[in-house]
């Protein structure tokens, strides 16, 4: 006799992590992309890491990468690939913040969340980013999730 297939439990933790990381990147990207890039370029100056000529291009591109990746992750589109992109971004942010702390640069606000989000100091942002890295890594490892565009693309409604 054929054994019944094991009942698959919904991974609510994974869905929560995907929604949280996705939403946060939407806020982060939108709050910068919705405003002229000069203000974000000015925050980047504080890191004393990039040549002047790079600041405006970074300030124009990064918010869009954050916004689109966040929206795709929240919608559950290409989950594994997008989680991988966000893991890369988060790792770069983490290293940048650590270099600020190591060089004793006094930044009152990391500028991570533009005009809308919380104003974190580099130390607070380092801890917060680490939590995001763990969540994004979990989503990367377990990308097959219900309530996602990927599920709809694969199976239909």
């Amino acid at each position, binding site marked *: 006799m054929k054994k019944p297939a094991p009942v698959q439990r919904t991974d609510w933790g994974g869905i929560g992590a995907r929604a949280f990381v996705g939403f946060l990147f939407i806020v982060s990207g939108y709050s910068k992309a919705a405003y002229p890039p000069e*203000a974000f370029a*000015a925050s980047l100056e504080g890191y004393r890491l990039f040549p002047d000529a790079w600041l405006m291009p970074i300030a124009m591109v990064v918010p869009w990468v954050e916004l689109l990746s966040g929206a795709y992750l929240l919608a559950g589109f290409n989950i594994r690939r997008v989680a991988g992109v966000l893991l890369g971004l988060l790792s770069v942010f983490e290293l940048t913040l650590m270099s600020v702390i190591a060089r004793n640069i006094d930044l009152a606000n990391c500028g991570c969340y*533009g005009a809308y989000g919380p104003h974190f100091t580099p130390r607070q942002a380092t801890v917060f980013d680490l939590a995001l890295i763990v969540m994004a890594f979990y989503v990367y490892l377990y990308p097959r999730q219900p309530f996602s565009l990927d599920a709809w693309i694969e199976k239909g409604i």
Partner: protein
Amino acid sequence: MLATQKARRLLSGFLVAALCVSAVAWSRRSRAEAMTDSGLQSRAKGPAGAKVLLTEFSDFQCPSCRYARPIVEELLKQYDGKVRFVFRHYPLNQHSRARDAALAAECAARQGKFWAMHDLLFDKQDEWTNAPDLGAQFAGYAQTAGLDAGSFAACISRPDTMSAVDRDVREGDAWQVTSTPTLFVGHRRLAGARQIQLYGPGLIETLLK
């Protein structure tokens, strides 16, 4: 089946991206009117009919604004007679005493002493930021600046003083100012002391041609 999946993938990717682009485009539509000196004679320097208008949105409690001050002053010296500079209040929410400082400067402006108070507030930023009694500290600065003490004290809490500061903040919001200092050279935006130093002279030169 595979063709259907490919079509769904393309459609989903496009729709999500289109939604993001539309949301940003809607936010970035300009709500600002033409940049003028708004008749702010008491907070302006340079000839009224100057070819180039410099408008700075600033916050007296912001360290970057203090760093930007000598850079802006150098620009005004370099282009003396050719540019008009207007100071606009933009006290940031994260600076708990910036709005009080803006009110003090506004009251000094009403006695024709805005620049004296402006200089004191930036020179002594650390002092009043940490002062236990802010009112007494500002009263002392008013005396140093040669203001009438009674009029100054009465002015601070008057509704029209507050509305003058609020009007500047509203106009800054309409111009999508999010950080200080933000200097507009004509309509071109520069954020932070370094951008003002690096790109300010070039933009002024371009507008003077």
